[in-house]
């Protein structure tokens, strides 16, 4: 059984590596700024004792006030997991740093989030629609769609 890491254990390590960064804790999740997600993820993948080598899931939630991008990380080596989140408050120009450089598996999932929720992933090598077609207007999983 994969054990979910306590957020305090992870937050202290992230805060030590990124001094002065805005890191919050919300329930079981660690929340970081959208422009430093890729750096935090690279750190979480390589930090000894953590080594989250597997991106289990990447999804997004629309709360109307802000978008939340959720990363479920798992370490196959240590058999533990954690949840990382980031929030974008600019609805018209939501941008998150891409984690495709850390986990290649994020490619299609980030394209899906971009396609259906309209969040741009800066640094993504091939950010275009994946499920809907070229020329489709709008992003249908946004709560204000239609």
């Amino acid at each position, binding site marked *: 059984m994969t054990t979910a890491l306590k957020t305090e254990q992870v937050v202290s390590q992230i805060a030590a590596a990124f001094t002065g960064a805005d890191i919050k804790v919300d329930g079981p999740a660690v929340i970081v700024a959208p422009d430093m997600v890729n750096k935090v993820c690279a750190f979480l993948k390589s930090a000894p004792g953590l080594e989250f080598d597997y991106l289990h899931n990447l999804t997004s939630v629309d709360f109307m006030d802000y978008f939340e991008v959720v990363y479920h990380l798992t370490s196959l080596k240590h058999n533990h997991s954690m949840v990382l989140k980031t929030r974008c408050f600019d609805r018209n120009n939501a941008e998150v740093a891409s984690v495709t450089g850390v986990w290649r598996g994020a490619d299609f999932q980030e394209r899906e989030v971009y396609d259906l929720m309209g969040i741009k992933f800066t640094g993504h090598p*091939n950010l275009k629609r994946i499920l809907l077609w070229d020329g489709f207007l709008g992003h*249908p999983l946004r709560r204000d769609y239609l």
Partner: protein
Amino acid sequence: MEVVGPESIKQLDSSEGQEINTLIERSRLPLTDPDQWLDEDLKRNTAMIATDAVLNWGRLNSIYMHATGPACCIFEFLSAFTARFDVARYGWEIFRPSPRQADVFVIAGTVTWKMAVQLRRLYDQMPEPKWVVAMGACAISGGTFRESYSVTPGVNRIMPVDVYIPGCPPRPEAYLYGMLALQEKIWKSSSKKQILEGTYKFKQNFRQFPSGNR
């Protein structure tokens, strides 16, 4: 094999998007009569009766299928081809992998706009005469996904449909009934259909085709 670069992929994407948007715009137009391609002179030609009877007899007893299953209805469709139902007795047990060898195109499932381009292309590749069977609520009208942004409101918005088999999903028996109705339609698709109807009275019992040993 030609190596496809990022630029040509971009072109492919945009041409696919344009094709889908054209399909969507065309789907908003009123539906046309699927039989409008039939020639008026051909319908009046009495010498065609015997030929039609032979041709139709052959066509309806050796239907070559081209099936596509975009959603769950395909499992009921495939169940109809198990030994329990023995569709070989009707003559529609042969599947063709290529639409160019098929007579009947069965669409069993939900058709999205992105898939609609491919299905329309398959339909265009089928040789005449060809028939289309829409199986299940989604293929008929979009079903529960009718108001969706990505699902076609019925296959008849993409291609003319001959037989609709309702159900969610329809049972194999419903599929058999639908195909029997299609056989009736094929038999009636004569250039002199009024005379044939008067002669053979298929409306009373459409199971009795003049084929003898089925």
